[in-house]
């Protein structure tokens, strides 16, 4: 078979499938709607996770530790210790928060301003805020860094703020698994919907298939338009799912911006990225094609001319 004949055959099959779907708009739209919704749900969950991740600004990696110095250690000594700390490998940044700054901050945010005025002396110690390098943020690295600072005689206590990071990452992981489960279940749903639609189509066109086989149509020839139909359902469903996602983003955009503002952020909701769309369309096409193939494989063989 030459390339031209090959192309012609496929173009014929594709156009034939499109024409057939167009002649049956109601059934086609219903099927597309089911597939579109089934694809949109896991995609929306995935998009939610992506947004949650970027809204919290790489939280997952922003680990730091607070090194509380003993209350007698003067600020000059704290500066000197900070310089020493900066020499240690794995340390990205060290900021000295002096006792005065600490008090000021506390006064500002805690709402205990008046109560603090009653204090004669500042009860807060000088603090070093240590940010580890990203490459050295594994829990073992953090442990060793903590032990290193804890061993200094001037250090009172080292607080490692990892618990909430771990919790946040765990929540994201649970959500990711949920997306996976939803994607698998709904993907199976898409397979079933496409498979059943194709099965009905095959039964409807039984006479045509018989005649086609009678005049020498191979199984591949008979199967081809059904595979294209499945592929079209997949693409159509993906387009619909895309529209649903964009519409959801549009509806949520304003409230999310308001919410972000209340947290002092200028975060704007992200629509589906190229990668999300690629997965959506790739998944839709693969499922549509596979559903059609399974159904065609099962049902076409039993139709032989008599």
């Amino acid at each position, binding site marked *: 078979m030459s390339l031209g004949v090959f192309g012609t055959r496929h173009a014929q099959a594709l156009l034939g499938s499109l024409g057939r779907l167009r002649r049956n708009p109601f059934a086609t739209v219903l099927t597309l709607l089911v597939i579109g919704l089934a694809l949109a749900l896991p995609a929306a969950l995935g998009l939610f996770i992506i947004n949650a991740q970027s809204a919290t600004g790489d939280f997952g990696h922003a680990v730091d530790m607070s090194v509380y110095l003993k209350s007698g250690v003067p600020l000059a000594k704290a500066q000197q210790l900070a310089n020493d700390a900066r020499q240690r490998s794995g340390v990205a940044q060290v900021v000295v928060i002096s006792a005065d700054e600490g008090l000021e901050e506390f006064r500002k945010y805690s709402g205990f301003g008046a109560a603090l005025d009653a204090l004669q002396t500042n009860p807060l110690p000088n603090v070093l805020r240590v940010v580890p390098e990203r490459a050295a943020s594994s829990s073992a690295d953090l442990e060793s860094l903590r032990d290193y600072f804890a061993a200094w005689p001037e250090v009172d206590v080292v607080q490692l703020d990892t618990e909430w990071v771990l919790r946040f990452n765990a929540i994201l992981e649970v959500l990711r698994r949920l997306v996976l489960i939803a994607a698998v279940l709904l993907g199976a749903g898409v397979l079933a919907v496409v498979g059943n639609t194709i099965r009905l189509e095959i039964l409807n066109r039984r006479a045509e298939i018989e005649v086609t086989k009678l005049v*020498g149509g191979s199984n591949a020839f008979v199967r081809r338009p059904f595979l294209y139909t499945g592929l079209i359902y997949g693409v159509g469903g993906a387009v619909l799912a895309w529209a649903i996602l964009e519409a959801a983003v549009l509806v949520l955009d304003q409230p999310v911006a308001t919410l972000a503002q209340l947290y002092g952020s200028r975060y704007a909701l992200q629509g589906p990225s190229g990668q999300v769309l690629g997965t959506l369309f790739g998944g839709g096409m693969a499922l549509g094609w596979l559903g059609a193939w399974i159904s065609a494989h099962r049902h076409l063989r039993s139709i032989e001319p008599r």
Partner: protein
Amino acid sequence: MIEFERVSKRYPNGREALTNVSFRIESGEMVFLTGRSGAGKSTVLKLVALLERPTRGTVTVNGKSTGALRARHIPAFRRHVGVVFQDHKLLADRPVFDNVALPLVVAGAPLKEIDKRVRAALDQVGLLGKERMLPSELSVGEQQRVGIARAVVSKPPLIIADEPTGNLDPELSLEVMRLFRRFSDVGVTVLVATHDQHIVRELAMREIVLASGEVQSGGADSLPHLVARR
């Protein structure tokens, strides 16, 4: 072109449709297959078109034994056999052109050639100009001729027809049979199953008579004589 050698066919329901049938049809011959209903005419045609395989014996068509042919080679085999049915098996939702073009489309012929050949085939059966009509808009005789055009469009070396005149009046029947004879005149082998004795007498072609699944006359033994007569 067609050779049956001690062919028996038993269907899964146990009915023995053919018993020990032998005959030979030469290339370019036109042969009538006659007998009462249930004599086995349709079974012979099904064996030739490879819709069925023989239970015993060998069926050789175009130099190929059908019993040994693998399933994936069946489509290519069928492209070399034009089949005409009593109920013509046209696709009701497709215009005449598409119906006739089907064997060429299936074989992957270029569009230009499809166009040319379909018109030529429709011209041969006298239906040129009705390409865009639906089968239901045609008379029964015209529908049958569309079926014939479809059978000949890919220029197969062999045409088989199962009661092609079953639904036609005598005049139309004769016209259809003459059409078959014209194909046979240009070298196509034609095998027509019919119970219409009038037509068989009129055309005076070789006749293989089946009765209860066996060859009654016109089979292998009388072959040399009949070939000579042609």
